């Protein structure tokens, strides 16, 4: 080594000729250059793999080994090259919107992403669909070496799959009942495509965010909701009125019947009472008919005469007087 260095020095310093205009110590240049080379080579022998990553080492361009997190040694750069892949970190892609600032109250940008979010439904209507896809790198070899721009490809696949699934559904399903099923189907199809394309990605979750009718149409959609509410309201009002009137009517009807029953009992009882009384009197009468008759007659007359206001007693021989009487005056008592 030293001999070689020596020979290099001699080569550079040897020979006469013109005296150099600029005094550059060759020794210094060589030393500096060699030092730089050594340092850079040495530097490239070390690499760090972060906790959420995995290191992939290529030797002469060929896949050699995978290394876990930590500080590692490898051969200097032209010979071995280290690439790092984030396999533990959960990655996210947004479609139809962009998070402008994340935090406790994140802010989103929507208008410019309408190209991504506007799509056709199965009944040839239009809806605005926003979603996110969460994924992880599952196979670092595939992720690095099978597809160029795997993330861009994933984005393209997301759009194609989401539109396919939405395109098979009515706008009503998309906006209301079908959200869960749509997200699930997109997840399944997307994973199948990722496997088919050798992306080495595992789809963790697809979540639908805001799904809305396009802005110009929104008021009409809201009106449908309102109309539904109104229908419910009308029916409820009618039922309330019904429930107010009918039970009361039933109660009143019952009352009427019960009053009639009361009347009936009263009538029959009275009749039976009167009948019993008569029968008793009759039984007594039959024992002494003449005397009982006279007695009752006289008792009655006693009561009647004592009540009478004016009484005129005329001897039966004076029967002809009747026309001469002054009627209307209080007579002798």
């Amino acid at each position: 080594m030293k001999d070689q260095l020596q020979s290099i020095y001699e080569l550079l310093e040897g020979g006469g000729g013109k005296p150099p205009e600029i005094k550059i110590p060759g020794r210094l240049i060589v030393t500096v250059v060699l030092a730089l080379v050594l340092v850079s080579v040495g530097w490239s022998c070390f690499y760090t793999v972060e906790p959420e990553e995995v290191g992939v080492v290529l030797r002469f361009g060929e896949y050699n080994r995978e290394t876990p997190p930590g500080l590692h040694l490898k051969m200097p750069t032209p010979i071995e090259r280290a690439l790092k892949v984030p396999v533990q970190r959960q990655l996210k892609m947004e479609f139809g919107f962009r998070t402008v600032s994340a935090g406790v109250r994140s802010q989103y940008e929507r208008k410019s992403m309408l190209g991504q979010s506007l799509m056709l439904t199965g009944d040839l209507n239009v809806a605005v669909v926003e979603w996110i896809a969460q994924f992880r790198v599952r196979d670092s070899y595939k992720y690095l070496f099978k597809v160029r721009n795997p993330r861009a490809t994933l984005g393209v696949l997301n759009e194609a799959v989401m539109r396919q699934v939405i395109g098979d559904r009515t706008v009503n399903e998309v906006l209301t009942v079908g959200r869960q099923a749509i997200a699930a189907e997109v997840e399944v199809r997307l994973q199948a495509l990722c496997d088919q394309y050798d992306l080495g990605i595992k789809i963790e979750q697809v979540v639908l965010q805001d799904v809305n009718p396009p802005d110009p149409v929104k008021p009409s959609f809201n009106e449908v909701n309102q109309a539904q509410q109104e229908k419910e309201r009308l029916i409820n009002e009618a039922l309330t009125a019904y429930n107010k009137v009918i039970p009361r009517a039933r109660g009143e009807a019952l009352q009427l019947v019960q009053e009639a029953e009361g009347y009936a009992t009263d009538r029959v009882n009275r009749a039976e009472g009167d009948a019993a009384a008569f029968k008793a009197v009759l039984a007594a009468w039959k024992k002494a008919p003449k005397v009982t008759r006279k007695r009752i007659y006289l008792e009655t007359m006693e009561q009647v005469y004592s009540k009478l206001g004016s009484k005129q007693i005329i001897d039966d021989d004076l029967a002809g007087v009747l026309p001469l009487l002054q009627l209307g005056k209080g007579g002798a008592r």
Partner: protein
Amino acid sequence: MNVSQRILIGVLMLSIVAVSGSPCYIIDETESAVVTQFGKPVGVAVTDPGLKFKVPFVQKVNRFEKRFLEWDGEPNQIPTRDKRFIWVDTTARWRISDPLLFFQRLRDERGAQSRLDDILDGATRNTIAKHNLLQLVRSSNRTAETSTETGGNQDKLTKIEAGRDELAAEVLAAGVAGSADLGIEILDFRFKRINYVEEVRKEVYTRMISERNRIAEQYRSEGHGEAARIAGEQERELKIISSEAYRTATEIKGKADAAAADIYADAYNRDPEVYAFLKTMELYRTSFDENTEAILQTDGEFLRFFDDPG
């Protein structure tokens, strides 16, 4: 030669070596290569990664991607069979399957992208023109889920014969056929985005609005109808209840009156004469009061002892 001149020469030599004078080259996992000698390919394509050797200066390494590559169609207005113009944005995945053939036919990726544009855009137009818009949007004949019990006014999905997948497969087949001798392999073709053209979109919005209005009106009229039915029901119930109550009550009263009449008749018929007498006595008691003036003759039962104690 002085030092600076020597350095200059050294640098010059290094650069010449670096350009094509190096006897070895590295192919990595994402590459394949074709070695050319004065512009003509030598040997077969190199596809395995690793350290390779060549003749310096004379031979040059042309590198190609081994990975799956993306192709993105130019978004365009395309008419369907039912005369609708729609914006179609397509995408495909392809790769260089035969680097040597690729090098000979297409030379580089830019050439390939341009050829793919021709092949696939053309195939897309043809396929879409042969099918209806509905077939481009839909993939299957599933039945739509409805959200409320009024299934009548919910949107339905019309049946289709061929769907999105079939159309994409058709374009792919055409693309594969068109690129058979180019050293590339088209792996997949998909419709990325399908959208209405701006003017059509406005019409569609108008249609959607009127459709929604129709549904809203239907809900409202259903509500009114049901409410009227309930009101009518209420009236009917009311009439039934009150008339039945009246009937029952009057029946009861009638029966009671009849029973009472029977009881009276039964009792009084035993001796109608006595009944007449007793009843008349009672009437006497209640009919006369202090406003009555009476003229009495002494030959009556009450006053017969008046004249003559007999």
